[in-house]
C-alpha cells in the first residue's frame, strides 16, 4: 500500500509517510463532473489551464469507462457506446499506465470518482483510494457546513 507525503486533503491525522514515491496529483469528481478537489504535489508540466484540465480529465475517464464497458470480453451484450453507464454497471477500469505516469481510478456507487496520478512503477493503489474515500466520507460528507456539489475547502 502506498502512502503519500505532502498535504492531506482534510484535517485528518497524517498517514505514515514512506520516503520517495509521492503522488503527482489527486482529483476528486462528483457524478456531474464538478471537480471537488484537486491537489498537486509534483507537476513540472502544465498543458492547459485548470478548468480545461479538469474537464479533459473528466471527459477522458467518462469515455474510458464507456470503452471498457463496451470492450468487455466476458459479458455477452452491452449497450451502445456513448450511453452513460450507471456507476458500477458494466466493466470499469481501475488504472492505466503510460511511460511517464500511472493513473489510478476508483468510482463509488454514489458517482464520486477519485483519481491519483503517480509514478509509473507504482503498484495497485485500490486500497489507498478506498482509504481516501473513507477520509472523504468522514470529514467532508459528515461536515454539517459542507454543501454537496461544492468544491472541498
Amino acid at each position, binding site marked *: 500500500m502506498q502512502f503519500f507525503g505532502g498535504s492531506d486533503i482534510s484535517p485528518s491525522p497524517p498517514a505514515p509517510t514512506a520516503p520517495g514515491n509521492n503522488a*503527482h*496529483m489527486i482529483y476528486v469528481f462528483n457524478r456531474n463532473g464538478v471537480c471537488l478537489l484537486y491537489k*498537486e504535489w*509534483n*507537476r*513540472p*508540466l502544465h*498543458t*492547459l489551464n485548470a478548468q480545461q*484540465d479538469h474537464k*479533459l*480529465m473528466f*471527459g*477522458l475517464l467518462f*469515455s*474510458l469507462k*464507456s*470503452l*471498457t464497458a*463496451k*470492450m*468487455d*470480453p*466476458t*459479458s*455477452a*451484450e*452491452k449497450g*451502445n*457506446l456513448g450511453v452513460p453507464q450507471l456507476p458500477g454497471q458494466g*466493466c*470499469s*477500469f*481501475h*488504472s*492505466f*499506465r*503510460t*511511460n*511517464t*505516469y500511472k*493513473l489510478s481510478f476508483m468510482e463509488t456507487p454514489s458517482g464520486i470518482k477519485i483519481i491519483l*496520478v503517480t509514478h509509473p512503477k507504482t503498484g495497485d493503489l485500490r486500497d489507498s483510494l478506498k482509504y481516501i474515500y473513507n477520509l472523504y466520507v468522514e470529514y467532508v460528507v459528515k461536515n454539517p457546513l459542507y454543501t454537496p456539489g461544492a468544491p472541498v475547502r
Partner: protein
Amino acid sequence: MAAIYNLYIINKSGGLIFYKDYGSAGRMDTNDSLRVASLWHSMHAISQQLSPVLGCAGIDLLEADNFDLHCFQSLTGTKFFVVCEPGTLHMENLLKYMYELYTDYVLKNPFYEMEMPIRCELFEISLSQAIQKDRVALLGR
C-alpha cells in the same frame, strides 16, 4: 495459459485496419470495432495531454476489472493493441512480435496499400500460430 481475447491494429489516423477475435464472449460487429478503435486512438492522444511530466507517449496498459489492454505504438504512429485476461504476462513481447509480422507480411506485400484494411492471408495465419504457440517460445526471441 491465460487467454487473449482479441487484437486490433489501427493506423496513424485512428482507423481500424485489422481486428481479430480469438474467443471473447462479447463479439463485436464491424461498426462497433471501428468505433472502439477510434475511441482508443483519441484516448491515447488525450492521455498524453494530461501527463504531469514531459515526454509522455500515451497509454501502454489499461487495467480493467475483467480484462487488460496492452498497447504498443510504433514510431510511425501505428498502434497495436491486445485485449487479454487480467494479469497475462509477456504481452509486450507478443505485440513486438506482431509488429515484426506486420512489417514482414503486410508492408512488404506489394499489393498492400498503406493505411488500408489488412487482407493478407499469410499475416493472419502466422499471427494465429503465434497466438496459439507456447508463451515460452515467444520469450526466447
